[in-house]
């Protein structure tokens, strides 16, 4: 007699309280056990690359910054590096130090955010609120340093926009002092709390082999035992002088990496300490001097028109993993011919979809949160229908949305045509 299996397919998302962003998974379930996961991307597509091809190099910096609310510095920084490579621009050393400081501040805020989300996903809201309370300090510091809590606009092609003076330095040192008191508490609760251990240990295990096959990067890759960090392996900027090395789970937990949610979380906790250290070293070792090559943006636009010829690749270890921006330009044009960012979430998402098979439904949301997915960065246009590729423009998407709205509610009133001047079509 053959065994009958009652498998159920359940949509998880695009709108779900456990997910921060619209993303969809089709779970095949056998009771509570996850048999298969199908990842559906594309619910947060905004056509960023399409928009970018109608902008010049400087305008794309603002666009890149707004791809994502959390790693806004990383995108801007990586894009800038790509253009600098294409244009062969030498960045002043002081600017590199300031980039390190802002980048590490961003890493602290991103990791604290993710730790809070992880706690929230197992219903441990106290830890969520206390972690996010601690996060306020770094947000305030970022605001004091860059003038903004989210989109810092610190980086420009050929340097940084704002200097870190004595006053800002004092604010950052204050923050370091505050976190030296708070991080031990965070470490205590995340590494030693019984509920957290029960839920995170041996959950969504991504083996080293799967991690390599799927190309997992960042804390997801390091949690599975891949010793890689773009800041370290690429000898990026001044990072080698500051003593960068990849944080592995065994440095934090003292055990062999198992590749589970707990290990990924432990890597993040280790990186919080590492970021504090890097900021301290960078503040101490920061040389005097210029902070940018070109004094004004209009000069920059004019210079880039003649300087960029060929292609450049920027690589940076964003909080979620290695981020790559590719830029190709032609002499005489102030617009790039091609700009392509590759987000760390993309490989990580497939790695974790593989890793969560065999676990329970309850583990799924924890597993997804453990790679700290950033879908607004990841979603790119890709429509393949009957083997033919078709590119949807903003106008087509608008038409489709109007059609759907009319379908749902035929009595809808109002003019659906866009107000004011939008992107040139």
């Amino acid at each position, binding site marked *: 007699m053959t065994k009958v299996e009652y498998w*159920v397919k359940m949509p998880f998302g695009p709108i779900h309280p456990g997910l921060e962003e619209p993303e969809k998974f089709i779970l095949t379930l056998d*009771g509570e056990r996850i048999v298969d996961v199908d990842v559906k991307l594309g619910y947060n597509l905004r056509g960023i690359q399409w928009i970018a091809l109608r902008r010049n190099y400087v305008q794309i910096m603002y666009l890149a910054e707004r791809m994502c609310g959390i790693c806004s510095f990383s995108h801007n920084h990586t894009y800038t590096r790509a253009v600098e490579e294409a244009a062969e621009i030498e960045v002043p050393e002081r600017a590199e130090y300031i980039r390190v400081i802002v980048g590490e501040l961003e890493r602290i805020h991103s990791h604290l955010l993710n730790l809070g989300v992880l706690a929230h996903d197992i*219903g441990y809201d106290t830890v969520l609120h206390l972690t996010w309370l601690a996060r306020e300090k770094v947000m305030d510091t970022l605001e004091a340093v860059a003038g903004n809590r989210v989109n810092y606009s610190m980086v420009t092609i050929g340097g940084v926009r704002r200097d870190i003076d004595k006053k800002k330095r004092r604010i950052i040192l204050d923050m370091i002092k505050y976190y030296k008191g708070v991080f031990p508490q965070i470490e205590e609760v995340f590494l030693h709390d019984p*509920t957290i251990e029960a839920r995170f240990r041996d959950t969504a295990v991504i083996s080293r082999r799967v991690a390599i096959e799927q190309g997992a990067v960042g804390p997801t890759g390091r949690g599975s035992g891949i010793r890689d960090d773009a800041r370290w392996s690429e000898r990026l900027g001044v990072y080698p002088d500051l003593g960068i090395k990849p944080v592995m789970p065994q440095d934090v937990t003292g055990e062999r990496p198992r590749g589970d949610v707990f290990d990924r979380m432990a890597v993040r906790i280790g990186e919080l300490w590492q970021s504090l250290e890097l900021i301290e070293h960078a503040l101490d070792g920061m040389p005097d001097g210029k902070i940018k090559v070109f004094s004004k943006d209009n000069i920059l636009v004019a210079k880039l028109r003649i300087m960029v010829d060929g292609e450049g690749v920027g690589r940076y270890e964003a909080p979620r993993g290695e981020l790559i921006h590719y830029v190709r330009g032609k002499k005489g044009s102030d617009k790039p011919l091609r700009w392509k960012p590759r987000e760390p979430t993309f490989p990580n998402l497939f790695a974790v979809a593989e890793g969560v098979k065999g676990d329970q439904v309850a583990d799924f*949301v924890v597993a997804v949160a453990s790679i700290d997915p950033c879908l607004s960065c990841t979603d790119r246009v890709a429509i393949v229908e009957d083997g033919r590729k078709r590119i949807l423009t903003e106008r087509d998407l608008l038409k489709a949305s109007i059609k759907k709205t009319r379908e749902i509610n035929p009595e809808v009133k109002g003019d659906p045509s866009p107000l004011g001047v939008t992107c040139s079509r």
Partner: protein
Amino acid sequence: MGMNVMSNIVYPVAGLLGLYGFVSLASLLWEGIDRKLVARMQRRVGPPLIQPFYDFLKLLSKETIVPNTANYMFRAAPVLALATAIALLAYTPMGFSPILASKGDVIVFIYLLALISFFKIVGAISSGSPYAKIGAAREATIMVSREPAMMLAIFAIMWRLGKLGVTKPFSLGIFYRHNIWEIGTPMSFVGAIILLYVFAVWLASEIEVGFFNIPDAEEEIAEGLLVEYSGRYLALLKLTKALKAYIAASLVVAIFFPWGIASYCNLTGLSAGIVNLLFHTLKVFVLLFVVDSVFRTVTGRLKITQAVDFLWKNVFLASLVGSLLIAMEVIM
């Protein structure tokens, strides 16, 4: 004849309606207090104390959406669940013997308490949502795991108290004549402490907080059982949940902390009942503070397998040991 109608029908019904009104207000107020206290423990400001009342009234005025896939039980279940909770009030010890106290009312009590969960499960399954079905499966699993420990303990306690000389040992009114601490031997004292732990965990799993917030897991299955409910039906289910928390806590209070203050104030009759009810409510709030507010502040939710493991391997065993300890000298 006239007197019989008065004492058999009119008084109990009036008492039940009065209790229903009072417990609805008290249990919703507790939810407000709980939310405020938890917020303060999490260093938040928290909603105003009467937020649950606002929520309830708002939900009553909202549109009620019924999914196409739902059948008639989806609509009937919230009403039946609330009706069961109201009926349960007549069998709940609240500082005095239950209104409809009888020979074996403890069985009715346990039965009706499980029936509330049962109606919630039926309603969820009838909605046709896969999330609700997972929630229903979890609720059923956790229900069969939590009840044996409680039932074993409560029958052991009542049987033991019956040996102290009462006519109806399996009536919930027994706790107001003899209580568990009166047995007196050191062994029974230890047993009572262990059983207090058992009942605290049972209460937490009954009201589904902390470790046991599994059937209604918001982040995993979008509030599971409640996922398709909205408007009036959701309001009824929320009220049922609040009533259930009060009722389940009342049982634990009656077993372990039954003392009233009316006799110290030389009160009798109705006024004694009211004073005892208020004092009982205070005790319920204190118990819920520990089991609900503090517990859900310091824990997260477990997986269903871990929760079932915990309820059988830890709580049921504790219940077995505790029951043996308090029954020991009678058996031997």
